């Protein structure tokens, strides 16, 4: 049927099918700014349009219903690529992180400003209530609305959104426009889905309906014969290789325990078969025609079930070790039926008893420590699975071009993708190119090779272009989740609060495969234990296979759960001793100049060493929070006898990349007009890494930001980078860009010295792209132009590799004030103040945005986010209708982030990491505040009203 309507002022008449949504029609006709994060469920708001002046989700409108209507999309609000006032305000207020939601936000704010000239906070909330954003924490949207509304009256209006740092530097420490923000706010092509060619084939995956089963038989004959079907891939015809999907440096500290398709399915949603067909509908239809017979096995659905004697075995194949011997007493002989498991080095595993990995170590003598204690407590804390829910699901577009495989990927780890995919297919790495597109949220889930292996293989073997995009349910059940963990903490202390011994026993549930099975739980220890100084400390970590959804990397990488357990236990001990919570922290925390002995046993993949800390900003941060929350004053009264007020505070830390293990490279090229191109291996996930690296170059070369173009994350054109994980972006990729710029600067000076006939030492680079000496000066443009000429000196490029043995710890202190309804169990976070040391904040407003985003995610994890499973291992809430992530309504009324920098000697311009740390604070701070309010300890998160009432003994 024909549908005629007015789109952005232009009359269109387009063919639509009767059941087709307006969103599908718009997208099909090339209006790519209309995004989709929930498969047309209407719960994410990313497909919003203004339909006859009302903001609606275009997935919930039939195309036919738009007949005769006026439809506006973000394209309406800019002209000739010039940002409209709302777009400009969003860019200026640092609201464009991954940018996947930005076009929808632009429309919502336009709609709001039509109704209200100077909107209140409540009006902003209402206007943005339908748009989900997982990056920003929404707080800065209020500023964006304010700026836009003021500029409508006064076009020159501006305001400072964050304090400035490093007065001696021009760009670093000042807010500059995020380099990709404008394109994202305009809704231009940026993401994998925007690269898909019109004739691309579609890949659809058949997921297992059972949590644990053998595939007795699989018959794809009927599916293969269906119209449009190009190929069907199953365990019978896929490459016979086991690998790990963890995007970690090789050899990975994760067992190679996964085949592209296996005879055994190990979780609901596990791969059974892939269909490649000419259309998505044909692929879906063919999936339904694949006949599979299963031999259903008893599933392992908890840590307790995994370790029970005689438990069903998740992996029963032969266990091999590349380096080292199997642990004494472990079983290695396979059942001849299941896929083998290869450990690159011993991880103290015993897979046939569902133990994927383990580790134990410590310092001092904990028995002696506990014996010396006046008080000993032992508590058990639990945290369930949560999902990172990037608004753009895992997506890849694979094609063969020039005899090589090209993968347009939404990934954090382009080089690991290249390595793994080439090995799986069995072609050399030089036959594979991975192009990281803009990533619509990664948060760790895109550290793994979740879709690229099968799409790459099918593209390579069929020669067809292949588009594979997860739907939201797959994103929940077959992507990566945060490991469920049970952590027992035993603490001993003297009467004055000084700790004498710490024991942390951690059991993790890694799910069906072992990606990150040891490193995530270890990080729970290594980012929590070193915050407390205690001579006797020990940890025991075990990671178990289960038949629940795969676990993996997620912002914080285990640290949120370690932090929850240890910080809450410390507060419980303080309560036991009658000591103030902050006094207890002060008595035991790491301090400037402290020797952190526990790091001897927390080597993160190499030999651990004790570290003597330089300056530590925690004292300042705690003092600030104490003051701003009026900690020493009586708590405010809620004015309602049911609502009780409570306060809590925690200290947190993270790292800045993996010293001694990882490396990043960059190259800077000087062009003939004096501008530069930065080739960075770094993978910007919307975090602003490309802006950090561009700043490093502009600062070093005395250029403007516009003089630096960043090309990043392309394995063909940019140099190697370990990828974006472990909070490494600024520290590693940023430093590589800085050092490459310094290298170029040295070459510019050397060349200029020859041209000007002066000593290099007499020359300096000056603002405006020129070299000035004692007698003369020459512009970069002139130098570069000469380089391109016959008599020239060769192209001027700077290169650098950054690696380090130095560990840089960002620290933070988070304070919360909340209200608990003792009758209903509801918890309302009223005030959340985050004090964060990220070293020199390279781009302060963006840094704050990331911290806001991390805090709000963690508030969601703490209060309502949880994947719930039935007795057969099926996730009961794999959609936004029932897995609630925070909307703008969940933002605390008083939400504050303050940057408290302590410069690092190795970090670029003194910078450390930001990205992960902010998620480590909310759970323990909220648990402690709940106790402060109502006197009950919640030791299992999320702290739903149901669990709070249970803790209160009311259920």
């Amino acid at each position, binding site marked *: 049927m024909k549908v005629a309507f007015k789109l952005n002022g232009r009359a269109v008449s387009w063919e639509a099918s009767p059941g087709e949504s307006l969103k599908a029609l718009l997208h099909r006709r090339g209006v790519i700014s209309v995004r989709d994060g929930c498969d047309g469920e*209407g719960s994410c708001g990313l497909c919003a349009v203004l339909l006859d002046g009302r903001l609606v989700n275009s997935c919930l*409108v039939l195309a036919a219903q738009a007949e005769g209507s006026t439809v506006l999309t973000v394209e309406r609000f800019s002209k000739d690529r010039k940002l409209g006032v709302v777009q400009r305000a969003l860019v200026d207020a640092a609201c464009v992180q991954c940018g996947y939601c930005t076009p929808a936000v632009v429309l919502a704010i336009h709609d709001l400003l039509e109704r209200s000239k100077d909107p209140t906070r409540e009006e902003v909330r209402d206007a943005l209530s339908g748009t989900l954003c997982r990056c920003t924490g929404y707080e800065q949207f209020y500023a964006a609305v304010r700026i836009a509304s003021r500029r409508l009256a006064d076009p020159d209006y501006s305001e400072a959104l964050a304090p400035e740092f490093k007065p001696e530097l021009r760009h670093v420490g000042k807010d500059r426009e995020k380099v990709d923000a404008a394109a994202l706010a305009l809704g231009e092509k940026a993401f994998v889905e925007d690269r898909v060619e019109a004739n691309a084939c579609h890949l659809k995956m058949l997921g297992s309906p059972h949590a644990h089963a053998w595939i007795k038989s699989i018959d794809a004959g009927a599916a293969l014969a269906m119209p449009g079907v190009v190929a069907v891939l199953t365990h019978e015809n896929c490459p016979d290789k086991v690998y790990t999907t963890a995007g970690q440096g090789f050899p990975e500290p994760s067992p190679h325990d996964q085949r592209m398709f296996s005879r055994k399915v190990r979780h609901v949603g596990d791969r059974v078969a892939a269909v490649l067909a000419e259309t998505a509908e044909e692929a879906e239809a063919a999936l339904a025609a694949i006949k599979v017979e299963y031999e259903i096995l008893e599933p392992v659905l908890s840590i307790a079930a995994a370790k029970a004697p005689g438990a069903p075995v998740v992996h029963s194949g032969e266990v091999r070790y590349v380096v080292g011997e199997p642990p004494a007493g472990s079983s290695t002989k396979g059942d001849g039926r299941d896929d083998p498991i290869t450990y690159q080095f011993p991880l103290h595993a015993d897979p046939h008893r569902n133990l994927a990995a383990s580790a134990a170590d410590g310092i001092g003598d904990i028995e002696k420590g506990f014996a010396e204690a006046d008080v000993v407590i032992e508590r058990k804390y639990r945290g369930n699975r949560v999902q990172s829910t990037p608004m753009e699901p895992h997506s890849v577009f694979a094609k063969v071009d020039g005899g090589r495989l090209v993968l347009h990927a939404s990934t954090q780890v382009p080089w690991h993708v290249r390595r793994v995919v080439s090995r799986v297919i069995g072609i050399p790495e030089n036959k594979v190119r991975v192009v990281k597109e803009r990533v619509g949220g990664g948060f760790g889930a895109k550290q793994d090779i979740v879709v690229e292996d099968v799409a790459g293989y099918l593209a390579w073997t069929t020669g067809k272009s292949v588009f594979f995009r997860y739907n939201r349910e797959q994103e929940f059940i077959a992507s990566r989740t945060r490991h469920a963990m049970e952590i027992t903490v035993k603490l001993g202390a003297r009467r004055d609060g000084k700790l004498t011994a710490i024991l942390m026993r951690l059991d993790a549930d890694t799910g069906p495969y072992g990606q990150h099975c040891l490193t995530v739980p270890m990080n729970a220890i290594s980012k929590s234990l070193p915050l407390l100084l205690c001579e006797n400390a020990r940890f025991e970590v075990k990671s178990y296979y289960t038949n629940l959804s795969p676990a993996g990397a997620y912002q914080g990488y285990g640290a949120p759960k370690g932090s929850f357990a240890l910080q809450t236990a410390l507060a419980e001990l303080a309560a036991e001793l009658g000591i103030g919570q902050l006094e207890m922290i002060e008595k035991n925390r790491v301090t400037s100049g402290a020797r952190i002995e526990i790091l001897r046993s927390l080597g993160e993949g190499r030999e651990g060493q004790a570290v003597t800390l330089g300056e530590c900003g925690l004292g300042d941060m705690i003092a600030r929070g104490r003051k701003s929350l009026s900690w020493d004053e009586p708590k405010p009264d809620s004015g309602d006898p049911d609502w009780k007020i409570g306060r809590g505070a925690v200290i947190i830390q993270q790292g800045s990349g993996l010293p001694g293990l990882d490396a990043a490279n960059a190259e800077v090229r000087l062009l003939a007009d004096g501008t530069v191109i930065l080739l960075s291996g770094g993978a910007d996930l919307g975090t602003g890494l490309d802006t950090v690296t561009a700043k490093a170059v502009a600062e070093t070369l005395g250029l403007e930001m516009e003089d630096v173009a960043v090309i990043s994350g392309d394995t063909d054109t940019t140099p190697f980078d370990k990828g974006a994980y472990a909070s490494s972006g600024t520290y590693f990729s940023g430093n590589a860009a800085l050092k490459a710029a310094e290298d170029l600067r040295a070459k510019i000076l050397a060349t200029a010295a020859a041209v000007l006939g002066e000593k290099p030492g007499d020359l300096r680079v000056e603002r405006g792209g020129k070299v000035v000496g004692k007698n003369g000066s020459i512009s970069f443009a002139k130098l570069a132009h000469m380089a391109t000429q016959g008599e020239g000196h060769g192209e001027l490029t700077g290169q650098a590799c950054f690696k380090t043995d130095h560990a840089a710890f960002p620290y933070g202190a988070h304070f919360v004030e909340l209200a608990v309804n003792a009758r209903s*169990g509801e918890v309302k976070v009223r005030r959340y103040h985050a004090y964060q040391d990220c070293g020199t904040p390279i781009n302060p407003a963006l840094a704050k945005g990331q911290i806001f985003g991390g805090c709000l995610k963690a508030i969601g994890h703490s209060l309502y986010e949880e994947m719930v499973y039935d007795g057969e291992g099926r996730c009961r809430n794999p959609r936004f209708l029932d897995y609630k992530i925070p909307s703008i309504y969940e933002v605390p009324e008083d939400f504050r982030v303050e940057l408290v920098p302590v410069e690092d000697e190795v970090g670029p311009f003194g910078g450390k990491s930001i990205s992960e740390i902010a998620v480590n604070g909310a759970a323990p701070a909220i648990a402690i505040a709940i106790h402060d309010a109502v006197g009950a300890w919640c030791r299992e998160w999320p702290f739903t009203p149901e669990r709070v009432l249970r803790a209160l003994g009311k259920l």
Partner: protein
Amino acid sequence: MPTRDYLRPASIDEALAARAAKPEAAFIAGGTFLLSSDRPTAPRLYVDVGRLLGAKIERRGAELVLGAGATFQDLVDAPALPAALKAAAATMANRNVRNRATVGGNLGAGKSCSSLIPALLALEARVVCAERPDAAHLSLPLSSWLERPTGLVLEVIVPVEAGRRAAFARWSRSACDLSVLTAAASYRLDGPGSIRGLAVAAGGLGPRARRFPEIERLFEGGALPPRGEIEALVAPLLSPVDDHRGGAAFKRLRGASLVADAILTAEEQA
């Protein structure tokens, strides 16, 4: 997804005829249920009544008339809506959805998580619906219509009675979540604290939101009881199911507490 047909009739009568001719057809207006959570079982034919239904919200004598085509945002923006009704409308998901979801569609979907239905039930609303072309419209109590939905809802009539107090309460996991549990109550207070004409409705406690005469009987004619008494008497009458939105014991406790909230806050909302 099966191929679907779409029809945009020119009149209510045409819509009724089209639906009568094809049993696999369903009326669609805002589409926020049919195209979302109900999509897997969606009908073969959509009969689009979105532009046929009145969207006015107006006072007619002692009645408030809601056009079935009025959106939830229209309800929120309407100047003179009973507070209980406005509160219920405001809890519908978020602004994007409220801009689309209609009063008629919400009744037609008949979900247990509807906020509007319990509020309207407690206010003893009636519906006016068209069953057959060229036949007179039916007017019947919403509670009866919900037991056996028929025809196409054209209007919802809310009696406006001086002295009638009403309130709505709900529990959801987050602000823009669907309503997991709802309760609404309305009554008059006769003399010094005697409850008359108590209507109590609740949702999330079974397959449909419904009136709870068993609760009404407990408190009719009496003085406003203290919260603890309401909760203790109501809880045993609720039989929610365990699901991923909450355990049965929790829902019973919380549901009773919402009933108490509705009854007690109604006192201030005459």
